[in-house]
């Protein structure tokens, strides 16, 4: 597959980085064009506590039927301008690809019905699970789990998905420990070397599965790395400055999907989306305050500033006073989108005013928000495209992020407490000790001590460890 190299920014002025508008909109599903001026809700849901097995599948299907009917009806009632429905497969639904396929088919039928009956503009995103670490050591490019994933991609496409995404986890064999130890060097190798190489392999496969079909090769997310860091930081287990660095660093590996053909919209939990939008111009999905049903975050408003789809991440199908939780969640998203769309309808200045409020209400309070201001997004994105190759880009990303945080805390509005400031210094010291040469950095990361890691899965010879 032809690989695209981004050496320039597609959006190079922070004024132009705004919700609803992407330089390269995409059209899919029933008449839904994403990134051309309107922000649409993207609704996601999951099962209440229950098992997924052969014998419970009828009950599982029943759950999804009820959810999708409730959600679509509410979308019609609220006159949303369009809707994306995301189905995130649970591990058993990917390991048994036919189960996932039957749910995609069910959702497709429901979406078609609401389109035909009510003219609802609507599209379906399917997100198979990266189940490759079900077997350890993790072979990644072979074995029954990988075969199940490939089968799942194809079945989701043929059952009617309009977009294919994944939360891929290449490099996780090294990153879990590195996150807990705040080990920047290993994190860089996990994302910028292992992750990037796995993404190239994986997104060629996803591109193949989508080729010649209605389905878009959409985008990935560094959820397993950067959102893990975010959750750990929110629970005060690791410093927030570290989580902010992991976030920007993760852009480099997520970008590889687009170098290998993904056209967006990126996946909702990819808070690296704004950098990807600036670099590639693809539309992005994001989640924030209205994903509080799924996880806490300190970027609830700023995430909306550049979003083309606005998501709730995930909500369990439980009963609330206002209705079933996914229906309630859709309602919240619908109102968020109304506000953004009416601001945009009042012209570019009005839209930017709302964007700036969204940005300023979060930016100073948390380093993870601060790195997402449009100016900082452009600065990080520029550092990425100006460097060559995933390793060098990753190193540059860390350097510029630390600069942004330090400047923000000394001369800017960013509040950092003493412990966070201490860790900013520690991270700077760590960066200075990371070799500038990729092979040397791989050696220094001691990958040989990671029990689940198969070097060949990342094109690394054993003697290079």
């Amino acid at each position: 597959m032809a690989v695209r190299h981004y050496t320039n920014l597609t959006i190079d002025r922070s004024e132009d980085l705004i919700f609803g508008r992407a330089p390269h909109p995409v059209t899919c599903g029933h008449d839904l064009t994403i990134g051309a001026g309107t922000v649409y809700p993207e609704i996601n849901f999951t099962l209440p506590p229950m098992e997924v097995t052969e014998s419970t599948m009828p009950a599982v299907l029943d759950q999804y039927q009820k959810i999708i009917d409730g959600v679509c009806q509410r979308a019609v009632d609220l006159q949303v301008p369009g809707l994306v429905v995301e189905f995130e497969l649970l591990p058993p639904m990917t390991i048994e690809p036919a189960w996932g396929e039957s749910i995609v088919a069910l959702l497709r039928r429901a979406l078609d019905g609401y389109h035909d009956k009510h003219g609802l503009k609507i599209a379906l995103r399917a997100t198979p699970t990266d189940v490759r670490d079900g077997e350890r050591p993790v072979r990644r490019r072979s074995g029954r789990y990988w075969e199940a994933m490939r089968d799942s991609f194809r079945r989701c496409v043929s059952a009617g998905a309009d977009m294919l995404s994944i939360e891929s986890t290449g490099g996780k064999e090294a990153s879990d420990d590195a996150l807990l130890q705040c080990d920047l060097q290993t994190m860089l190798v996990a994302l910028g070397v292992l992750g990037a190489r796995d993404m190239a392999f994986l997104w060629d496969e996803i591109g193949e599965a989508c080729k010649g079909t209605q389905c878009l090769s959409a985008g990935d997310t560094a959820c397993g790395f950067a959102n893990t860091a975010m959750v750990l930081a929110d629970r005060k287990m690791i410093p927030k400055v570290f989580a902010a660095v992991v976030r920007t660093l993760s852009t480099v590996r997520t970008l590889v999907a687009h170098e290998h053909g993904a056209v967006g919209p990126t996946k909702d939990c990819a808070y690296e989306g704004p950098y990807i939008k600036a670099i590639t111009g693809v539309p992005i999905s994001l989640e924030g305050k209205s994903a509080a049903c799924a996880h806490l975050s300190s970027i609830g408003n700023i995430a909306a500033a550049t979003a083309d789809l606005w998501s709730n991440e995930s909500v369990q199908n439980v009963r609330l006073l206002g209705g079933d939780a996914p229906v309630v969640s859709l309602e919240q998203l619908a109102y968020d989108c109304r506000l953004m769309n009416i601001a945009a309808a009042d012209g570019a200045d009005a839209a930017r005013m709302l964007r700036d409020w969204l940005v300023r209400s979060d930016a100073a309070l948390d380093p993870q928000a601060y790195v997402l201001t449009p100016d900082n997004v452009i600065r990080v994105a520029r550092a990425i495209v100006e460097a060559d190759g995933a390793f060098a880009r990753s190193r540059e990303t860390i350097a510029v992020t630390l600069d942004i945080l330090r400047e923000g805390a000394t001369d800017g509005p960013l509040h950092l407490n003493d412990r966070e400031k201490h860790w900013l210094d520690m991270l700077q010291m760590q960066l200075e000790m990371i070799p500038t040469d990729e092979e040397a950095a791989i050696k220094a990361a001691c990958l040989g001590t990671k029990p689940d890691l198969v070097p060949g899965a990342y094109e690394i010879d054993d003697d290079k460890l």
Partner: protein
Amino acid sequence: MTETTDAPKDILANIAQCVQTGKADANMNIPMGSKGQPGVAEWVDQAIAKDVPPQTILAEGLMAGLQVIGKKFAANEVFIPEVLIAARAMHAGMNKLKPLFAEQDMPSRGTFVMGTVQGDLHDIGKNLVCMLLEGAGWRIIDVGVDCAPEKLVAAIKEHPDCAVGLSALLTTTMVAMGKAVSAIRESFPDKTVIVGGAPVTEEFAKEIGASGYAPDPSAAIDLLDRLQPAA
């Protein structure tokens, strides 16, 4: 051996202090600028040379240090990486003590068998609980992630006096947690089985017949002290 020793209390205090700052040995430059000054390993050597009983070094030096860190962690005063380097420093001291315990096993608070339930691969929480229980003196048998009930039962058979911990992070694997508890109860009706993980609650623990629930590692330490008091 008598209850009290004539060991200088300050050696033990230094050991505990070095565990807290993560200074495993003299070579280590943590805290910055401390290279060359004695760390846990050197202080433990001195304590041994002064005939301080290894039990005392372990309890009043090494474990005392890690317990302070565990409490600070529970109070959000330190981050996990700081706990980890403290745990590593404690291990540096334990390695010195191990040969002295050659005859019997290292003394411990008890054995704790811990796993993430079948179908679930989340292990960050599980690993943290293991680490801090180890700091509280438990011997840890970590049976890993995606544990079928049979695997858990087999591990318990090998360590019949153990307490058991189960972790689940997915709503869909909470069911597997229930099955694991039932399987354990079949062979070991009175076994102490504690459960945890983000979606798990006290109520759910009762419903599936677990002995108790704890939201975090320090609560788990207290819970185990209640359910299975030290001999």
